[in-house]
């Protein structure tokens, strides 16, 4: 038997039925297997050890999250998928927190408020969701992938775009769900926060090329709220900032902020170190 086993391991021709019987025996019987292992290890021991190293390394890698697997199925390149999946704003905890805040904002406004006022509260807060999300994605305090992202072989600008789009995607999805469910909004007003949201987010990024991202988010957030309150008071219409002139301004702000970002793309490599 040992002789046959040696011939088998050496790759000598053996009639198929005999070979198969031997293979089944090896697979099933620990003693046969031990003998086969001894013979193979004499030549291939080092090779087997090297493959084992690779196997262990591959199985040590953390399991992919459901989102990451979904992105891979959609043919997103692997490094990008991992980066997107690591976005803090795409975690369930984050999404749930944002949803709860917006729900309270929509429901908890004062008794006897008009629907327009309740809606105004929701619309004023919604554009801040992606701002906070972006700040979290690029701040060392909240982003666990900071060092990894900084060391990634990918340009700062591309990195910024990928992460910002991930945040925007998540923020818009959750906010949209809340506003579509809201009893106080109707028609296009349900989505009137989207363009202002793009404007506040891009303005935050521009400011972040000069200061810390958290500061930038705070400044832009406060500025946004002050502007909204001021306009509402002046024209005595809580929805005024979201009508077409406001939307137009949002487009202009988004476009110019994007242009400035592209112009300052060289500075963006250092954005995440602040």
């Amino acid at each position, binding site marked *: 038997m040992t002789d046959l086993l040696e011939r*088998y391991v050496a790759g000598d021709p053996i009639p*198929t*039925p*005999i070979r198969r019987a031997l293979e089944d025996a090896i*697979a099933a*019987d*620990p003693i046969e297997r031990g003998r086969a292992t001894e013979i*193979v290890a004499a030549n291939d021991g080092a090779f087997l050890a090297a*493959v084992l190293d690779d*196997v262990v390394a591959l199985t040590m890698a953390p399991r992919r999250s459901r989102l990451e697997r979904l992105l891979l199925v959609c043919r997103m390149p692997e490094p990008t998928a991992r980066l997107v999946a690591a976005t803090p704003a795409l975690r369930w905890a984050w999404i749930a927190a944002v949803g709860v805040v917006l729900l309270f904002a929509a429901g908890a406004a004062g008794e006897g408020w008009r629907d327009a006022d309740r809606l105004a509260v929701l619309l004023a807060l919604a554009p801040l969701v992606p701002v906070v999300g972006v700040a979290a994605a690029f701040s060392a305090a909240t982003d666990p992938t900071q060092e990894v992202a900084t060391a990634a072989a990918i340009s700062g600008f591309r990195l910024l775009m990928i992460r910002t789009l991930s945040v925007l995607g998540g923020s818009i999805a959750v906010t949209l769900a809340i506003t579509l469910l809201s009893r106080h909004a109707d028609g296009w007003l349900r989505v009137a926060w989207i363009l202002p949201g793009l404007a506040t987010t891009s303005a935050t990024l521009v400011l972040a090329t000069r200061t810390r991202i958290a500061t930038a988010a705070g400044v832009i957030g406060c500025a946004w709220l002050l502007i909204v309150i001021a306009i509402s008071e002046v024209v005595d219409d809580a929805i005024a900032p979201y009508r077409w002139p406001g939307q137009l301004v949002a487009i202009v702000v988004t476009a110019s902020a994007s242009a400035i970002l592209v112009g300052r793309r060289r500075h963006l490599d250092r954005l995440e170190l602040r």
Partner: protein
Amino acid sequence: MRAPDHDDTDARLVNRIAEGDHAALVDLYGRHAAWILVRLRRRCAVEELVDNALQDTFVSAWRSAPDYRVERGAVGAWLWTIAVRRLVDQLRRRAPPTPVDNVPDTVELPPPGTPADELLAGLAPDLQGVVEAVYLDGLTVNEAALLLGIPAGTVKSRLSRARTELTRTEWKGVPR
């Protein structure tokens, strides 16, 4: 030849792997990698593909360990079904499959309990490889074609010849 309580250690190892135990994976590899390597080499002469398939086998085993059920067979047999599929994956990645028309992807199985060597011994040598790949290793016609390096149509015609031969000899009553 078969030990009476074969491989209950192996099954325990697989259970521990299912719980994420890397030491158990190393143990299982130590017990099985060598023979799987040789067996893969006997199926494919391209060293690189065999090497990749061996690695993929144990990575797959790590991932699918929670699905292993001892009632469905010994660990060795389970590992081999994984290994032969990983080898076919390697072959597929290397040579894009030539389109084959109208080849049904499954064939009926031989009667359960048929010893492999007896089944094969009743066949002409050119039919043995096909029967082994499809009946014994559970590959589809297209996978067997990749593994054996022959067109799927040939696999199909050899299978039907094999079926005729088997029914003509001692395997009378094989469902056709």
